[in-house]
């Protein structure tokens, strides 16, 4: 499954309101609940936090890719959030993270999960894409970027 098939305006939040790693994770999970993709916010948060506790998913260049295997989703699910001012996400380069991809997959979908993470990794190598994405004013603009 291509990333572009996972993204739609309902799962994008701009700007994110949270000011800490936990706030951001909970906010993105709530986006998925509001969009009807998950029911159990707490269990999802526990699964995401469990992975995060093993090592931060805050990368370089302002991107973070929190991810987890969780039985709270039936299919692979993505949420995208942008915090233009950035937030401390314990990133590799120590700089604030601005673009957050939360990717959740059921435990039996390792293949598609890896493909989607690889696609996000490829996107994250493009500084231009990340800069344009982090400047998106609304979900529509962000979604359009993936389709261009």
């Amino acid at each position, binding site marked *: *499954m*291509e990333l*572009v*098939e996972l993204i739609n305006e309902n799962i994008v939040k701009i700007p994110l309101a949270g000011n800490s790693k936990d706030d951001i994770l909970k906010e993105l999970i709530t986006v998925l609940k509001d969009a009807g993709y998950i029911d159990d916010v707490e269990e999802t948060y526990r699964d995401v936090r469990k*992975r995060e506790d*093993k*090592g931060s*998913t805050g*990368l370089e260049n302002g991107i973070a*890719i929190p*991810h987890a295997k969780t039985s709270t989703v039936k299919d692979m699910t993505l949420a995208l959030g942008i915090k233009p001012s950035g937030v401390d996400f314990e990133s*590799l380069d120590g700089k604030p993270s601005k673009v957050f991809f939360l990717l959740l997959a059921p*435990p*039996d979908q*390792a*293949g*598609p*999960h*890896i*493909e989607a*993470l*690889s*696609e*996000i*990794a*490829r*996107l*994250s190598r493009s500084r231009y894409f990340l800069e344009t994405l982090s400047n998106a004013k609304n979900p529509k603009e962000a979604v359009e970027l*993936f*389709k*261009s």
Partner: protein
Amino acid sequence: MKRDGKPGNLIKRKYYMEGPIKKIMVYIDGTEESITAGQYAICLSKSAGAELSALYVINTRALNELLRARIFIKSEQEEYKNDLEKDADRYLKHIKALADEKAINVNLIKASGNIIAEIKKSVKELDIDLLVIGELSRIQSRLDELHNEVERAMRSVSCSVLIVKDQERVETLYESLK
């Protein structure tokens, strides 16, 4: 062999009698589309009397890239590799069950590495003359076009390629196969 009076038919008939498809390989990646491709390949194998192989590639290249990009930690890479091994066994077993149901032998191949390279390698080593793959995702961006590995394999593989579409029709075809 008889000629029927039309130029070139001797060659055509010889080709037909030997059968244009002798070795089919279906690429399985765990998607519904690839399972449908498996069902179609079983039908083709039966009607053409061709040998059938099913290939699953554990994408260790992607796992290594995710580790390098620091998206994965080492223990996570191992965990996902084990998951992929189990997926490979599960989906190949499923294809075998589908083939057994129609009394078709299938050669199961589990490979690891780069998807494109492994598909090409198996096609060459097994002298495959038809690669069967599931329906590809709709190209929705330039990035899709550049990075869809099965599509790239389809373009670069040395044998003919058949893309299977219409899941419902294939299901009916498979179910009706004696």
